[in-house]
């Protein structure tokens, strides 16, 4: 086979055929500020040793999460990942066969995906779960689109306490699909009236549990109100470990439960790759996006696994598919499955308890002046500082403590400059808690 690169003439032909003037015209949907104006200024070349030396010096400028007292959460949580998880996911039987192109001969891959689905369904209290999505935010976006298909309506109500990045993904998908969004203004705590906004045009209500600011709320009444109007309740979570201890969203009457699975088996990974969890009711199965693995028996009556209900998917259903996702987060889902298997139900509950205990200890150390704004919490709280949180976070970092997230960085222009979002997981030691409490005291005095 010959390989002939494109020339200018070929490019012009193709552009003329699809009716655009230039290649840049294909990128009009990307904001100007995000577009590259000129090639990235890189030196022509350097020796391998020099490159390594340079990159090592660049890396040394980072403060690694594992090297300091670390209290950052906000959708990505630093949990201990047992060494056995990394060992097992790197076995070549799993690592090199990450996607089942010929499903029936990759029984091992299908079996762990089936177990993954079972774990996600149990964790969320739902009846069915898929083999994973890209991450929590795209799961949330897909959940809204699914609710529109189920209800044949097109308006979603979004809680002001949904992670702003998740809201951003839902906004993008809704804008492109021509769907309506009712985004409730951001408030840190207190009553949020979502039920009063639901009407007979509403397709779904999207809430987070625990919410972005750390509160844990029971949505049973909201689910009932939604159902009374023929709408669905979508419950989103960013901290999967919380579900090891809290009431399952399925038990509150949620119709779709989606979230981020990074917390279990996966490191922070600079923000990705992560693994999106997606679960729903059996009756909505046909409208669910993503790959689905099923258990069956072969002609000899032996247990076996298959990819099933593929007619929902793009490679068969084309433009009528439930989603354009054609894959899953295979390796991250595997890490999730292995860690969950190692933990077991009791272990997960113990891990969750440890997390909550650490946060209770931190709250006690911070004292009444820095009491959480939220009345309920799992392993994350929001506190109001006497000074802008941005300055405090930077001053703490200078003291070698990564002390949380300046809320206004993710929620700008809504008067939350003094709010700090703090997470404490099982990886936080008593010494870390002391370093944080002391550092905060110094910075604020």
């Amino acid at each position: 086979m010959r390989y002939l690169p494109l020339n200018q003439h070929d490019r012009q032909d193709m552009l003329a055929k699809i009716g655009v003037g230039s290649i840049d015209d294909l990128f009009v949907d990307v904001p100007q500020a995000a577009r590259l104006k000129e090639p990235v200024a890189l030196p022509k070349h350097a020796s391998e040793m020099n490159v390594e030396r340079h990159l090592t010096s660049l890396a040394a400028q980072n403060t690694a999460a594992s090297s300091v007292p670390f209290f950052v959460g906000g959708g990505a949580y630093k949990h201990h990942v047992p060494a056995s998880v990394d060992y097992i996911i790197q076995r070549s039987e799993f690592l090199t066969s990450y996607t089942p192109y010929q499903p029936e001969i990759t029984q091992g891959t299908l079996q762990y995906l089936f177990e993954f689905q079972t774990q996600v369904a149990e964790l969320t209290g739902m009846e069915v779960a898929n083999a994973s999505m890209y991450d929590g935010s795209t799961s949330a976006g897909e959940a809204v689109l699914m609710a529109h298909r189920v209800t044949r309506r097109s308006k979603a109500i979004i809680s002001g306490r949904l992670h702003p990045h998740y809201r951003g993904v839902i906004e993008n998908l809704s804008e492109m699909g021509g769907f309506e969004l009712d985004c409730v203004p951001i408030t840190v705590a207190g009553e949020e009236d979502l039920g009063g906004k639901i009407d007979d045009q509403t397709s779904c209500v999207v809430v987070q549990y625990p919410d972005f600011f750390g509160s844990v709320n029971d949505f049973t009444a909201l689910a009932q109100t939604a159902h009374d109007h023929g709408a669905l309740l979508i419950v989103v979570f960013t901290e999967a470990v919380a579900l090891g201890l809290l009431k399952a969203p399925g038990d509150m009457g949620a119709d779709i439960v989606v979230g981020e699975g990074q917390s279990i088996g996966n490191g922070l990974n600079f923000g990705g790759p992560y693994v999106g969890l997606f679960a729903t009711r059996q009756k909505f199965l046909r409208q669910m996006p993503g790959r689905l693995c099923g258990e069956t028996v072969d002609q000899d009556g032996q247990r076996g696994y298959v990819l099933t209900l593929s007619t929902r998917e793009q490679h068969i259903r084309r433009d009528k598919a439930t989603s354009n996702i054609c894959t899953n987060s295979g390796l991250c889902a595997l890490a999730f499955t292995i860690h969950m298997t190692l933990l077991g139900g009791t272990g997960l509950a113990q891990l969750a308890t440890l997390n909550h205990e650490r946060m209770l200890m931190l709250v006690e150390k911070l004292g009444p002046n820095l009491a959480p704004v939220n009345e309920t919490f799992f392993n994350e709280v929001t506190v109001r500082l006497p000074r802008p949180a941005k300055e405090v976070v930077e001053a703490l970092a200078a003291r070698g403590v990564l002390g949380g997230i300046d809320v206004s960085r993710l929620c700008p222009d809504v008067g939350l400059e003094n709010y700090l979002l703090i997470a404490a997981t099982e990886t936080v030691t008593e010494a870390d808690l002391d370093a944080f409490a002391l550092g905060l005291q110094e910075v604020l005095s």
Partner: protein
Amino acid sequence: MSQVKFTKDHEWVRLEGDIATVGITDYAQVQLGDVVFVEVPDAGLKVVQGGDAAVVESVKAASEVYAPVSGEITEGNAALGDNPALVNEAPEGDGWFFKMSLSEPHELDDLMDEAGYAAYLKELG
């Protein structure tokens, strides 16, 4: 006197009074193989001739079922939810998909009668 008409997409439509019943033909069910799922429209849905109205899935394929004429759905065949195999067993009987009222009854004139459909199938080979 009811009369059955056929589309080139292998739907049949039978008008009785003001209400038409729609399904897929025996030829279509043979082509599809074992039907495993049917999604029928809800009453009240407005459809146009040739537009999407229902979905039929078999072990081999997933296909759209189109409205043979324009109008409003009055009933989807709920029995197909529990027993999609009715489409294979009685495609032109109990395996009907939906009933509808007609907004443009003259559209029926565009469709084939039984002899016309038989000739069309012969053409397809």
